[in-house]
């Protein structure tokens, strides 16, 4: 018997975290993602699973609480929106450097600065190209439905622990705030096994103590650590690329879009096909590692590619890097919290790729 529920994206992420067996959530209120912590506080997961929920004094404190919990092998999560995620970047760099698993949800709003509270996808660079200091990568998942907000809590924790690396769920205000039907999964147990090769659980008698840190003042050892991280990221690139194709079999034009933009493109494809324009969609599900190979294989058959993002054109750089020369690639996007309509997207495909 399926367990179905009508939920907001933010609520689905919170319920997903509980059911994925999260041990702790640490957050700070910010629009448009406050429902995550509100839902958790109302739901009282302490009583359901023993998961702890704490409202921190700042995003700085929240990400460092996650760091502390993660250092003990617990499944820890935080969520925020763009300005708050910017504040967390130091902590995220430390988590990546110390190789700690955790789940971070960014329900992106318009920027820069305090920006707006409306949806945006302008945090793509920050999410996929670094964000904090040092050579590190996050595994970045881009949900495009409320169902995926729920499901990616499970996938996110799985990948975080598989690679001992922070996983970022890059959503946006549209996916976070809209309501859709969600098929809920069964409750997973909370963490019961703690791998003494790295977790801090108190030094057992007769065993070595564990130290969790990103610091090594010896440059030659720090380089070896960096090489190890890069090797891990290469494994990630080889094994964890996820994407979805829609109507690409006969397509002459291709949209590349993730998250809410992918949803808008679905409708634009339908409108275009009614006019006889054969459009398909490649939707990256992992923004890092980026689905460069499938995109490169698809691109030569296309008359043109339109990268649709709610930004000034950030992901389009990865589209160009993936495809190279020879295929006409353009970007279309709205900024500052404005959401393009499907008609607008189709119009721009015609203007930028067909009539020129």
């Amino acid at each position, binding site marked *: 018997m399926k367990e179905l529920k009508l939920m907001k994206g933010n609520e689905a992420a919170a319920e997903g975290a509980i059911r994925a067996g999260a041990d702790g959530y640490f957050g700070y209120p910010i629009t448009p993602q406050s429902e995550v912590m509100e839902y958790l506080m109302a739901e009282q997961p302490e009583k359901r699973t023993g998961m702890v929920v704490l409202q921190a*004094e700042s995003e700085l404190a929240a990400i*460092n*609480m996650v*760091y*502390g919990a993660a*250092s003990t092998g617990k499944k820890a999560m935080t969520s925020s929106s763009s300005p708050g995620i910017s504040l967390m970047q130091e902590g995220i760099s430390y988590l990546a450097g110390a190789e700690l698993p955790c789940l971070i949800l960014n329900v992106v709003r318009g920027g820069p600065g305090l920006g707006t509270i409306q949806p945006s996808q302008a945090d793509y660079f920050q999410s996929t190209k670094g964000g904090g200091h040092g050579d590190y990568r996050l595994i970045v998942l881009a949900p495009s439905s409320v169902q995926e907000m729920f499901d990616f809590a499970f996938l996110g924790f799985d990948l975080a622990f598989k690679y001992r690396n922070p996983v970022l769920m890059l959503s946006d205000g549209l996916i976070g705030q809209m309501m859709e039907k969600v098929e809920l999964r069964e409750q997973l147990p909370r963490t019961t096994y703690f791998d003494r090769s790295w977790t801090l*659980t108190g030094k057992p008698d007769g065993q070595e103590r564990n130290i969790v*840190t990103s*610091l090594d003042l010896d440059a030659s050892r720090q380089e070896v650590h960096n090489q190890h991280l890069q090797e891990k990221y290469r494994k990630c690139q080889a094994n964890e690329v996820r994407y979805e194709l829609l109507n690409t079999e006969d397509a002459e034009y291709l949209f590349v879009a993730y998250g809410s933009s992918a949803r808008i493109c679905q409708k634009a494809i339908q409108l275009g096909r009614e006019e006889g324009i054969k459009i398909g969609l490649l939707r990256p599900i992992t923004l890092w590692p980026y689905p460069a190979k499938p995109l490169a294989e698809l691109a030569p058959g296309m008359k043109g590619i339109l990268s649709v993002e709610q930004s000034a054109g950030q992901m389009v750089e990865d589209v160009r890097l993936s495809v190279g020369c020879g295929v006409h690639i353009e970007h279309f996007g709205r900024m500052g919290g404005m959401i393009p309509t499907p008609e607008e997207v189709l119009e721009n495909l015609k203007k930028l790729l067909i009539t020129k």
Partner: protein
Amino acid sequence: MDIKDIIKPENLVYQKTPLMTDKPLSYCPGCGHGTAHRILMEVIEEMGIQSETIGVAPVGCSVLAYDFMNVDMVGASHGRAPAVATGIKRCWPEKFVYTYQGDGDLAAIGTAETIHACNRGENITIIFINNGIYGMTGGQMAPTTLKGMKTSTSPYGRDIETMGNPLKMTELVAQLPGTCYVTRQSVHSPRNVRRAKKAIRTAFESQKGKKGTSLVEIVSNCNSGWKLEPVAANDWMVENMFPFFPLGDIKVDGKLVNNQ
């Protein structure tokens, strides 16, 4: 009598706690950190809680505290140790969790984390080493630098009008209902070392009793940063630091002591 006849277990009156590793301390000769580390580890040994203890190291001179303290430890980013400790303790309420922080870490960049962890009454122990200076980075002005005190960023002495006042963080957190035991100690004499150790024990016993946040400030020296020889640094500390940062208990069992 051969020396081997003297060195026998039954003749042993003192030995280094096994909770201190054999790694040579990276602190300057004369610095109080080594003594503070030792008494902290001795308390954990005497309470028999090594296997249940998780420590949080700060950024500052004691950034490498985990090299010397033989317990599970995590290195926090600058100032965030109380938040890191909160994350650990909330997930492992049965463990003993402590932070070990300097004045710049605890009372400048980490002010918010310190106050809010104390205000929530996180059941952790904070060991606060206050030497009135940033030692690690080469002797810059700290939030606890005394009025008129010369540092590399207050080369003409701390000017209160432009640089602000030294901060009494320990008195400040004692006002918060979340703290149960707040005290200020030092480790410059055998008597004070014994008192400081007793205070750390009280702090960990408070944690065991789930009484709230316990904070032990240790006023310490920084002979390198203060540009004084070790003995002179201790004398200077007694003459100048103690009048502004008086030693003694500030809050015991959740109650303020002596009209604090």
